[in-house]
Each structure stands twice: as C-alpha cells, then as structure tokens.
C-alpha cells in the first residue's frame, strides 16, 4: 500500500486505525524524494527523520500532525541541518536553532524530512535563480515547465504527492503563485500571526510564513496550531486571534465577494475565463453576492514598481550580515573589506546583485525622495484603496495567475505586469491570502486566489473551503492527472 499522495487527514486515519506507522511512511517518502527529477532538494534530514519516526509508537488521535512528514523551504533555519537559502554565499552554514514555526510543528510530532530549493534568498518568482538551477513543475512533459517561486521546491514536492504539506514564505506572492501553477493550496495568514523567527529576512514588513497543502482545511489546521505570539519575534501579534476551524464550514449565503474587473479584462486564456465564470455562477447559486467591481488601473499598475523598489531597498539591509566573516562561505582577501567584497561577489548570483544595486540606487540621498519615499507613499495609496474595498466585501476573488505554468523561458501570458504581480497587495497590507486549484487547462493546473482584510483569516478560509467543495479539487496531485 502506498502512503504517497495522501492528505494529512488520510495519513492520520491510517495511523489511528493501526494500518501503518510513521516509520513506514517516512521510509516511503525518502525513497520517493531520492527518485525526484524536479530538482526540489537542498539538504536532507533523512536519518533524523527516520530516528524521530521510530520513536513515535502511540498515536495521538486528537493531533492530526502526529507522524506527518513535511518539507521545509531552505530559508527557514533548521538546527544542525545546512540552511543556505539556495545561495552560494551560505553554502555550509548550519544554524544552531530551529525557526519557531518548525519548533511548533516538531512539538506536535510532525517530521521535517528535507529542505527545498527556492529562488536565491527568496528573491524571484519563477524558481529558476537558486544556486542549484531550475526547479521543475511535475505537471506537463518532464522538465519543461517552471513551477514558480520563490517557494519552488516546497510547491513541487507537495504537487508530486511526496508529502501532504510543506513550509513556504511569501514576500510578493512566493507561496500563492507557485501554488497556482502546481495545482495545490498555498496560504499565508495575516502578517504577524505566525512567528518569523528563523526565517531569512527579505523585506520584513512584507515577509510572511505560510503553507502548501492539498486541502484548504489542512492549511487552516496548520495555521491554527502554529499561530500566536512568540517572544523571539517581537512583531508577532500579542492578542490571541480567534480559531479559524470552528466556522470553516459555514455556508456561503450572504458572503460578499469582489472581482476586480480591470484584472479580469486583461485575461486571455479562454479555459481560465470559462472556469472562473463557472465558479462565480456556482458561488452565486450558493447565495454569495459576487460583484465585478471597477478599480483604479493606475493603482494596479503601481503595484509592481512599488514592490520592487521597496523590497530591493530593504533587502540590502537584511542581507548586510552576509559577509563571510562571522559565518558563511568566505573567500579570502588581504583585508577584511576585501574578504567581504570577494565573498559577496562570488557568493551572490548576478540577479541578486542587480536587486541590491537597484535598492542602493533608490536609497541614494539624491534619489530617495523620488523613488524609495514615493514607493512608500504609493504603498499607502494602494493599501488605502484595498482597505476601502474591504469595508464592503469579505474577500477579493481573482485568478492567481493569467494562465497555467509557463514553459521554461516563456513569458506568462498576457504579461501586462498587472495580472502577473497583483497578489503583492496582500503583502503591502499584511492581508491573509490563499490560492487553491480552479481547474485544469490541457492537463495543467489553474489557480484562483482570495484575499481578505487583516484578521479575517477565518472568513477567508471559510470561503476557500466552500470553493474547494464546489471545484471538487480536494487533494489534487500530479499522479491523479497524469
């Protein structure tokens, strides 16, 4: 009996019935990971996972995560296991501690099994800039399509059915875009609800911890058991937030959903439009109110430049500690300045250097007002506009990407930049946001995204859960489609 392609709940049921053990499952997952062809792995924790699984003898019936193996994006610190953020500058770096979210998952006896590839240091949206090269999408012909990024390996691994969930991080759409192209659920909660302690910073006020799963309920469950104040991350929310599980099955009747008309108007993929409109009709049939609303196109067009300017500027500071002196992949030099320069020059890829240069440019004294400060002002205009929308609507519903996963080197259609980058609004505002499967287009997944106001995680997950009931795409994985 195979234990791959099962959800958390399905594996848990097998444990409770005594039909298998965590060690059996872990061994099978390791075997599958060793045969993976999509370049999803950084360091592995196979021995530790086997040893931990072997200690799990008495199933905890109330704990869905007992004995569940999971993958970890390699920008989360893992104690004793190399964590290089898919960057050569951190080759060989072994943290002394676990990221807080991993500590909480391990306390529930979930089993981290391997680290996964990402766009270098989380910067990138395609899963092609990590130091190990392209991470592939398991859908389509072998090694022909990107899976998206930056959480590329974590998305590919869950879509392949190796594990039922993985950890990702999201600064612009780094969980929610790959979730769309991999046909899985990708969720990031309200900013500050899950501790970022141990997550490598990209841009702190945009960075979020989140999950990939193959069911909405399981994303909600993972959020429920990992959220909450952490004194090691003083930006976590001190006030306990309400449970998101109790109301997840609430009927849709009366829920108010906004579709941004200017974004739908630029969509060109006919299957996507058809699937989306069909979903809208089903939502209306359930009693939801769905409005196609106008929205200022100048604000939508400002999302990408605002994101790029702010994130490039702030990431310079976040990565200033990568010098090769205290830790990291040092390159020799005749002075400490030369060591730092040589280490950083050899350690960062060209793409990272360009982001740093751009960031440094917009922070120059003579440029700061025209660029960086203006981008922060732009952020206010964007967030205010979406906050105003959330006064009327419970959520915004849109395709998570304008089409299925592009082939390597191919641009994502139709590429006006707006429809490919709008999901960064959820990072600007700290809003909870989730992508889930919408349908298939020539055998390739299409995703739909929902974004709600801060602290409306419960409402967001409720609507997403009901959409999953309507699409019937629970536990979608590549083995089911191919």
């Amino acid at each position: 009996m195979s234990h791959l392609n099962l959800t958390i709940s399905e594996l848990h049921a097998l444990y409770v019935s005594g039909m298998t053990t965590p060690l059996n499952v872990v061994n099978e997952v390791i075997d599958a990971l060793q045969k993976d062809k999509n370049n999803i792995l950084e360091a592995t924790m196979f021995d530790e996972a086997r040893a931990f699984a072997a200690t799990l003898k008495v199933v905890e019936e109330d704990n869905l995560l007992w004995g569940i193996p999971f993958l970890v994006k390699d920008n989360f610190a893992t104690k004793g296991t190399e964590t290089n953020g898919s960057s050569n500058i951190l080759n060989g770096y072994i943290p002394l501690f676990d990221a807080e979210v991993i500590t909480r998952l391990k306390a529930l006896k979930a089993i981290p099994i391997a680290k996964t590839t990402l766009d270098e240091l989380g910067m990138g949206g395609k899963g092609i800039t990590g130091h190990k090269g392209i991470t592939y999408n398991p859908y389509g012909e072998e090694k022909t399509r990107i899976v998206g990024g930056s959480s590329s390996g974590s998305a590919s691994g869950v879509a392949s059915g190796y594990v039922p969930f993985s950890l990702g991080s999201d600064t612009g759409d780094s969980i929610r875009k790959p979730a769309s192209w991999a046909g899985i659920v990708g969720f990031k909660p309200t900013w500050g609800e899950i501790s970022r302690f141990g997550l490598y910073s990209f841009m702190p006020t945009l960075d979020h911890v989140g999950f990939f799963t193959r069911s909405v309920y399981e994303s909600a469950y993972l959020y429920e058991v990992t959220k909450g104040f952490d004194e090691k991350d003083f930006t976590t929310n001190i006030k306990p937030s309400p449970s998101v599980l109790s109301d997840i099955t609430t009927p849709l009747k009366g829920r108010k959903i906004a579709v941004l008309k200017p974004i739908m108007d630029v969509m060109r993929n006919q299957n996507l439009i058809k699937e989306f409109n069909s979903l809208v009709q089903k939502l209306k049939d359930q009693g939801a109110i769905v409005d196609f609303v106008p929205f200022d196109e100048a604000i939508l067009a400002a999302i990408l430049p605002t994101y790029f300017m702010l994130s490039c500027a702030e990431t310079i500071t976040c990565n200033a500690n990568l010098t090769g002196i205290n830790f990291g992949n040092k390159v020799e030099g005749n002075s400490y300045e030369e060591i730092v320069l040589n280490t950083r020059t050899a350690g960062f890829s060209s793409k990272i250097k360009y982001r740093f240069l751009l960031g440094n440019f917009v922070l120059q004294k003579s440029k700061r007002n025209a660029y960086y400060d203006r981008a922060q002002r732009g952020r206010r205009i964007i967030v205010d506009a979406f906050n105003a929308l959330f006064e009327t609507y419970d959520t915004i519903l849109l395709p998570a990407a304008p089409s299925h996963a592009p082939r390597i080197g191919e641009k994502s259609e139709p590429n006006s930049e707006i429809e490919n980058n709008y999901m960064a609004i959820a990072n600007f505002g700290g809003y909870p946001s989730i992508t889930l499967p919408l349908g298939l287009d020539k055998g390739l997944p299409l995703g739909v995204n929902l974004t709600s106001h801060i602290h409306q995680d419960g409402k967001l997950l409720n609507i997403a859960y009901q959409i999953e009931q309507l699409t019937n795409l629970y536990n979608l994985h590549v083995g089911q489609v191919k």
Partner: protein
Amino acid sequence: MEKIDIKKLAREILISLSPEEEKEFMEEFSYFIEQFKKLEALPHVDEVAPMFFPIKEERDFLREDEPEALYSTKEILSNSKNMKDTFIVIPKVVK
C-alpha cells in the same frame, strides 16, 4: 535616462560586477526606471504620508531582561571559517 555611477553603487554595498554583469544590469535598470514612472502617475502620490507599516495595532512589549545561556562560544563560532581559539581572526586592520 537616469545616469548612474554603477561602480560606486556596487562599491558601497561591497560587491563587484563583471563587464557582462554591468551591461546586463543597465538593461534591467532601464526597464525598472520605466516601471517606476507608473508611480509618478499615481494621483496625489506626493501628497500622502509614506506607509512604512500597514497595521495600526500596538505590538511593542518589554520582556524581562533575564540572562540566558543559549549557546557556547564554540557553537557560536562554529560557522565561521576564521575561528582561532575563541576569536574570529581577520587580516590586520592597523598596519
């Protein structure tokens, strides 16, 4: 088109670029300067206050200042390639 001193920008953040990288960066730079113009087009963009953080709730707190031994010196230095005894060694600064 903006003029930039690419070598100075790189030097300030302690990286250097190959000639190919300089060329490629200039191409990307032009693209983003074009993108940035979309911000100028935002109505009233220079009349609002910058938003450095979107959430209004108080998140400040003070913890007790209790000493805690988390890691040994050896552990802390274990990721440095410049360790000698309990020091990180770099080339002489004062020559």
